[in-house]
């Protein structure tokens, strides 16, 4: 009996040792790789943020100068305003449109796959390709303006008026992400038990009450997820303004990423560019935390 029992136990511990050896032989190369391509840049990021450097000289330690410089850097302050401007259009546009899309998708009678794929295929488009595509489609004398001209006798300066340029870029981003975010919300809607609606209807609640008191509070987690994703996305915008407006008109569509790129490679100031990146990350992290603290609610279906 004891021999029968001890066999597997011994074997198991032998497996354990072999497993650990295998584990280490996988993990050690991975850790070494991560140390080089993640750890080293991480350390350099900290060094650059506190030094002055131009790619060639020796980095000179300047304490918080890079951070202090931002408070007097007109372009940087303009970019903060630009980003708020982007958020002011994008967040409502993307939340309302993807929520409507999710609600409508629940009611769809036929062609659901076609609809989902059509909206999602916008999401897997290439940033460079669709930026070039839209800058032609919405060009001053482009096809869209020709339609507007024929119908209403006006042409719209999609990318040359500052507010319109921001709005147009937000429109393109909404085009890209509405299907994706809509499906996240749709997955949230699917989790709400039908019995809740039936019970509320028995109590005499109307459609409006059902939406505001049941649907909206219960998809809170997915709504917050979408908002957070959209915020992080906004702080990382690069390709669209870089290719369509070049940051103009009057630097109104210049984003943090464009500024980081230009500072590093056109003004040859990688230390300040890195500081811009760090502060951008902190700002987006701060805003995300604020949104989570303010709007996130625990939801449980009992």
């Amino acid at each position, binding site marked *: 009996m004891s021999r029968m029992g001890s066999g597997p136990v011994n074997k198991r511990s032998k*497996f354990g040792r072999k497993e650990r050896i295998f584990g280490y032989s996988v993990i050690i190369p991975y850790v070494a790789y991560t140390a080089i391509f993640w750890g080293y840049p991480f350390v*350099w990021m900290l060094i650059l943020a506190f030094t002055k450097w131009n790619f060639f000289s020796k980095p000179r330690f300047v304490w918080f100068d890079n951070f202090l410089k931002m408070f007097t850097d007109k372009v940087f302050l303009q970019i903060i305003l630009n980003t708020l401007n982007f958020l002011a259009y994008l967040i409502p546009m993307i939340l309302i449109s993807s929520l409507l899309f999710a609600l*409508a998708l629940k009611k769809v009678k036929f062609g659901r796959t076609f609809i989902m794929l059509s909206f999602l295929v916008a999401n897997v488009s*290439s940033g460079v390709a669709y930026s070039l*595509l839209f800058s032609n489609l919405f060009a001053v004398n482009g096809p869209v303006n020709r339609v507007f001209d024929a119908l209403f006798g006006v042409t719209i300066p999609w990318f040359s008026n500052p507010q319109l340029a921001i709005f147009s870029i937000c429109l393109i981003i909404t085009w890209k992400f509405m299907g994706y975010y809509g499906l996240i919300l749709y997955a949230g809607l699917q989790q709400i038990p039908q019995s809740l609606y039936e019970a509320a209807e028995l109590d005499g609640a109307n459609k409006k009450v059902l939406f505001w008191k049941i649907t909206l509070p219960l998809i809170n987690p997915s709504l917050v997820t979408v908002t957070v994703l959209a915020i*992080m996305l906004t702080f990382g915008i690069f390709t669209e303004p870089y290719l369509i407006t070049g940051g103009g008109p009057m630097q109104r569509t210049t984003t943090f990423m464009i500024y980081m790129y230009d500072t590093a*490679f056109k003004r040859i100031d990688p230390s300040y560019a890195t500081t811009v990146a760090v502060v951008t990350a902190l700002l987006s992290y701060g805003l995300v935390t604020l949104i989570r603290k303010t709007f996130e609610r625990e939801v449980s279906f009992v």
Partner: protein
Amino acid sequence: MKKQEIGAYIITILLIFLAIIWIYPYIWLFISSFKPAEDIYTTFWPKSLTLDHYKFIFIMANRFERPFVRAFLNSLFISTTVTFSVIITSALVGYAISRIKFKTGQVLFNFTIWQMLFPGFMFMIPLFVLIRNFNWLNTYKALIVPSLTSAWGIFMFAQAFKTIPEDYVDAARMDGANDFWIIFRLMFPLAGSTASIVGLFTFIGIWDNFLWPLMVMKDYNKMPLSVLLASFNHEYASYIGPILAGSVIQTIPMVLIFLLLRKYFLQGISMSLR
């Protein structure tokens, strides 16, 4: 009840109409790339079709120092290399940190989650400095090596492997299977949807990557298509036809892989909620 039914049909038709508007830019792009240059802005239905723009891309563009075919192959090479590497390393490391009982694994698992908190753009300039110190600027290495592993991929595989019952693994071990066999013959097929999701998002992410290759690649012969197309547009903006044809070529692989793996794309979306 009847009224609701009618409402649902109206919504359906409205959504199908919207879906067509959503893919309209693609349709316009595709049709326009076959239209003579002077018709691109003016007519929707082409009066005549031409292959000039594609001919330009495939043959003429070399004379403009813009080798589009080569750039397409570059993109394909870079994206597939990175995708396969990410899938394999993520499966290996994911297995090590989720199924092997040792403390280092747990520490590393927490570390990968922590890693995901940092947006990639924070490291771009410092990573550029590293690549420059390695003398890797303007080489394929600069585009491939920094992306060979992915914290997100490891996390996804670790989560998927956790759900596979221990009995399966024990049974395989009793039969003398080694770790590689367990990972790639037993676990990997059971985590097929995770592998597809990780592969799909990695491929699309690398294919579409623009800012990083823009920084490290100035050599037209080794550029991925995204950067070559942008630089062509920058200098020859009036060649609208070839630009649109190039955009079609840049878009096709992404749409193809999406249509191929669409089922997993939808699963990936519902997974991002957990």
